[in-house]
Structures are given as C-alpha cells and as structure tokens.
C-alpha cells in the first residue's frame, strides 16, 4: 500500500480544480485542509451528525463518508459557494430572524439539508422538515427555531399555509 497521491479533477464552487489527493483522504478533509474551504465542519466522522454536509452533483452527501478521490469528475458545492451565489439568502435571513443558530457549528449542514427539501417538489410539513433534518445534530437550538425558519421559507415560496 502506498500513500501516493492520485490525480483528481473536479469543479468546486464553479472553479475547475486539478490537483492530487491521497486515497484515504475524505472529501470534507480535502475541502477544509487542502482547499481552505473551512465552512464545512467535521464532527463525528462516521455519518451521524451532518456537520460535514456538502453537495456533490447537486445532491447533499456526507463529506466524511465519501473519499475525495471519489469526487473525481464531479461538481462539488460547499456552503461558501452556495452562500456567495445568493441561493441561500432567504433561508439565511429566516435563520437569523428565528434565532435558528447559536454557536453555528451545525448551520452550514442545516442550510444545505433544508435547501434540498425546499428546492424539491415534495409536499412540505413540519413533520417532513423534521424528517429531512433528522440526520443533522444541533446541540444549541433545540431544533424548534430551525423548523420554524425552514417552514417560513417554505410558506413564502409556495404560498398558503402548509
């Protein structure tokens, strides 16, 4: 076995990146330590907490349960890219209004996870919001405010009460 670096080519937040990576490096460590994108967080490193959530080819994934080398040829979007693009503006404002974050550790993952539901055509209820964020731990807010914020955006976008 070798610690050799393998070539990898991918799009990260709209920019083409050509570099090399060790096979054992997971996607979130690659983004944080080798691409200086530290907005994505690392908590449990075994898929339980959701802090490491990023988008790969348009779908949220656990950054700790995918190898960086597996992202070869994909499009990766992190909280930095999604935030800068303005796509999260409404949701971020709603989080702010509802105090849906305190320490902020879970927030990047929460935002991307909620965004996937809001952008889908699934019917949205508080129950559905809770299911969607069931894989994201928040040790501060007690979740209520997060559900309130996501619900508010859903109502604003889809009209009528849910």
């Amino acid at each position, binding site marked *: *076995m070798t610690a050799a670096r393998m070539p990898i080519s991918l799009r990260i937040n709209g920019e083409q990146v050509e570099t090399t990576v060790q096979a054992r490096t997971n996607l979130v460590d690659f983004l944080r330590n080798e691409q200086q994108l530290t907005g994505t967080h690392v908590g449990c490193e075994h898929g339980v907490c959701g802090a490491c*959530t990023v988008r790969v080819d348009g779908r*949220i994934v*656990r950054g700790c349960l995918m*190898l960086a080398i*597996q992202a070869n040829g994909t499009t990766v979007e992190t909280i930095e890219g999604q935030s800068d693009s303005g796509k999260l503006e409404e949701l971020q404002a709603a989080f702010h209004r509802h105090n849906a974050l305190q320490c902020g550790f879970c927030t990047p993952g929460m935002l991307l996870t909620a965004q996937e539901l809001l952008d889908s055509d699934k019917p949205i209820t508080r129950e559905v919001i809770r*299911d*969607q964020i069931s894989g994201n731990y928040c040790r501060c807010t007690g979740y209520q405010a997060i559900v309130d914020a996501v619900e508010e955006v859903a109502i604003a976008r889809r009209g009528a009460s849910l």
Partner: protein
Amino acid sequence: MKAPEFDYVRPDTLEDVFVLLDDETCDARLLAGGQSLIAALNFRLDAPELLIDINRIDGLSGIVEDGDNIRIGALTRHVEVENSQIVARHLPLLSKAIGNVAHAAIRNRGTFGGSLALADPAAEIPACCLAYDAIITASSSSGNRTIRAADFFHGLYETALEDHEIITAVEFKKRAPNDLVAFDEITRRHGDYAMAGLAFSAAAKGKIEDPHIVFFGISDRPIRAVEAEAILEGARLDQPAIAAAASKATEGIELSSDTSASEAMKAHLARTLLNRALTSILEEKP
C-alpha cells in the same frame, strides 16, 4: 478518526472487478455507497489493502420492469427507490420502508446491494427482501448465481455471499394491488437503525394467504415469525386472529439484545408492532 491507508481502484467493467476479487493475495473490499464501509474505515474497525470502487460501472444501477418482475440494480441508491413510481405501484412494502433508512444525505449515496451485503440485522431493505421472497443475483468470474432472500442472511453481518462475488441485482415479483402490506419500526430518532421493526406482506383473497411476517432488529438477522404466520394462514383478519398471532410473535425466534433494548423488550416491541400493523390493516379495509 481517519481511515488507515489503502489502495484505491475504480474499474469500469464487471470483468475488471472479477479479476481483482479473484486475487486471493489481496485483502479487498467493494466500495458502493460507502455509507457503512467508510464509517467503519474511519473508526478503524476494518483495514483492507484495497478498495474497489464500483460506482462507475455501467448497468449496475436502476429499477427496471420486466413482465411480471421488477429488477433493482445493486448500485441503485436508496433515494431512487424512494422516488420510484414502479416501486410505489408494484412493491409498496419497499416504498413504505425506504424513507426509514437513515437520513436524506445518506439515502443519496447508500445502495440497495450495499445494504444487503452488509446485512445489518436492524436494516429495513433486507427485511423487505425477505418479506417479498426476493432473488439476489451474485456474480463472479465463474458466472451468475441466484440466492433466495430466505437463504441469504446467515447471521450478524453474515451472508451467503462468497469473497469473490459481487451482488449485481435483486429481482422481485410484482405484487397484486389488493395485497395486504404494513411496515413499522420503533426508533429513538427518525432514520436511526430500528430497535425493532416489522415488514408484513400477504395475499388477500377473502382470507389471508401466504403471510410473510418479518421482524428486524430483534435477532441476529431479519427473521420470519413462522408460528404467527401459521395462525394467519387461511384465517379471516379479525381481532381474535390478530390477538392470537401477536401472542406468538416471537415464538421460536432467537432474540438478540443490543445497546438499544433487552431481549424482553425486543419481544414486547415485536408483539406490539404486529398487533398495531394488523389492526391498521383491519381498520383500513372497507
């Protein structure tokens, strides 16, 4: 923690996978969704020399209707099963179950074949495969072999699969629209592995025919409650039949406790689940 070092290859064809799996000098693992394997590597519960990434192999993924059969490719992601109209129409049990498998981000990566190969005793997909008499195709350099779900699960994370085999697909018979179905599980948090779960399917022609009562999370593998099934076979679904079946729910089943619940609690949950499921079917019926 971080994964130990390993080599990584991403073959394009099954033939290339077979060559790698046939090399007995190399301790290799197939990497599908990675939602269990990478977690195990990060924990250093496993330290293979080589990971064989099967994510870019053509033809391993997708849900196909073929006459009376439905074929689910091994690499089909949980989310595809969740969104499939074919599954919703013809395999309703699977449709009800799949949203309970982990969380959205994990369902975006985790695969059907991976879940079967892992054979976690508390997993939903293996239980549904047993309840629906699914047929699993295992492929290797010596060809394809089919394994009935009933013969596939051998124990805690143990299956009939050989080291040099890869699951390529799973076949189901389409179910009749008036089938009786129920799925339920008890978890502390939505998306967690179940403390106890039930997948139920039966044909209904006035009476109950061919009932399959499968419990998961209560033994070392998904397991059929044959005693309770015997009570339901040929019976009319009514309160006395439900009570009789529920009282025999775990008869003859070797229960296993885990960190979530004792054996006595698992037995209690199993009885409750069966009672609830059958009662809900009774109440739904016109």
